């Protein structure tokens, strides 16, 4: 399935993601990592640590409503894979980000911006295995 190339929207959206990361660090001293936020919500280490993560999550989840109010249309979310793929992929992502200590936002944006060697290695690794997985599923297995 083709998708539209959206350089401007993607650049602006990326800039907003970066601005959120900078504000969270500058105001609250925290890394803007989706894995760490979700993990801290699921396994709290204390009420003060739990509350800011929940507030961040609630803010994130209210974005679609604001998006609809501002633009008058639903955000573009297309899922071209089966329910089975979502379940298997979800469990693998959950295992991988817990073991690897981060995902695209934590390692790929915040870690890379701090010139962390761990984050650079993690980002190169998950980009490479994702590329290989998409190649195999689309061009060899043909899902």
């Amino acid at each position, binding site marked *: 399935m083709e998708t539209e190339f959206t350089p401007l929207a*993607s650049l602006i959206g990326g800039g907003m993601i*970066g601005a959120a990361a900078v504000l969270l660090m500058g105001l*609250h*001293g925290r890394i803007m990592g989706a894995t760490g936020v979700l993990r801290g919500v699921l396994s709290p280490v204390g009420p003060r640590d739990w509350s800011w993560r929940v507030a961040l999550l609630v803010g*994130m989840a209210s974005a679609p409503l604001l998006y609809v109010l501002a633009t008058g249309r639903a955000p573009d*979310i297309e899922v071209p894979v089966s329910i089975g793929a979502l379940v298997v*992929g979800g469990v693998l992502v959950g295992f991988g980000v817990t073991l690897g200590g981060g995902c*695209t936002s934590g390692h790929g944006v915040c870690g890379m*911006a701090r010139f962390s060697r761990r984050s650079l290695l993690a980002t190169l690794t998950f980009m490479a295995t*994702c590329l290989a997985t998409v190649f195999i599923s689309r061009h060899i297995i043909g899902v």
Partner: protein
Amino acid sequence: MRLLSVGLIGVLFGVGILVSGMASPAKVLNFFDVGGAWDPSLMFVMGGALTVTLLGYRFVLSRSAPLFDGSFHLPVAHQLDARLLGGAAVFGVGWGIAGFCPGGVLPAIGTGRADVLIFVASLIVGMLATDAWGKYIQRCEAAQRE
């Protein structure tokens, strides 16, 4: 005040994810499908996010402390080990299968879509199971030492 400010930062992140296209698996998977229906948009997401964070971090991390907290909470791990490499490798495989990553999917929860919620539930199962497995291994190792 502190929580309101964090919530608004969450909104900014979430809207950024939706505008950028990171919440749409079709777009994410096409970015990685270089030999097929390639959509280079995500390069611009990463470019925009990294540029702003890199410049912004230089400024805020040069201060002695964040505005609403006593200190910066930065990761202390420095070692490049098999855990990091293996975890990142498996994350990439799962990302390539489903097209959602944690940062892309969390804001999408607000749409209430069944496919989004199924992925999030699976993600949580994977995270909790990995945590439980890690604690089990730790207990076994501690028992062996005694």
